[in-house]
């Protein structure tokens, strides 16, 4: 049995990344932890695209370009979220999502 030549292997790994990212996003109690989980989810999406690109796409360049696009979005997202965390820390002195409740009744 060849594990690395099978589409299902990659799909299951990508699914695992998505699931563990979801879990981390729900249970984390800091904004940075949520950012890390979202990076895991985006990685899973990229892996999925690359797997379909290798096994099912007629032109192998398309999936690679899409994965590059995902990487660019992840980098931009990380920069924006870290600057948000700076701004939130400046105002609330904490990076816990539960503490940011100014609009809470």
């Amino acid at each position, binding site marked *: 049995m060849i594990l690395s030549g099978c589409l299902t292997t990659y799909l299951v790994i990508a699914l*695992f990344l998505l699931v563990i990212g979801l879990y981390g996003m729900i249970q*984390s109690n800091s904004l940075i932890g949520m950012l890390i*989980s979202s990076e895991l989810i985006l990685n899973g999406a990229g892996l999925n695209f690359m797997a379909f690109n290798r096994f099912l796409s007629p032109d192998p360049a398309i999936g690679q370009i899409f994965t590059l696009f995902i990487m660019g979005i992840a980098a931009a997202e*990380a920069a924006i979220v*870290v600057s948000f965390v700076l701004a939130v820390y*400046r105002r609330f002195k904490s990076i816990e999502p539960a503490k940011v409740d100014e609009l809470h009744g």
Partner: protein
Amino acid sequence: MIFYKYISEFLFIAFIMLVFLGSLLAVRAKVLMHGVLGLAVSILGVSGLYFYLGSMFLTLMQVLIYVGAVCIVIAFGVMVGKTPTEVEGLKLKAGIFGMFVSAVVFILLIFSIKKTSWKIPIKMSGDFSIEHLGYTMLTKYCLAFELISVLLLAAVVGAIIIARGGREEINS
């Protein structure tokens, strides 16, 4: 020759282990910096899988962009604030809820992966070389390329404006 195949499979499983253990460390770490390290390990594993999927270019890009840029940016973010205090009851409840949701998603998607029959393309056009990738990116998918650059520019400018002034308190 069969010997090399075994080595390749062994390395493949090692990369999968890197992905699994790294992502587990990333979400379960008590100290946030360990979480960033786990993310880096997991990303290195995914870049190894990209190599098995035939794209040397994306392997290098993954290491360069994620480990080199994103993880460093997140490490800066970790150093900003102190690690939040644990609220035991709330944390436990959120953990159980998260496990429930992710288990449901996992089971649903694994069934759909099992049930789908994938269609293999009849004929291939192009190959995995960097030349073909660059040619396609700058002709057919030029818009995506330009959009990435505009997006990154906007993100960097926005990040600078939002984070201006460091972590001192605002005078208002």
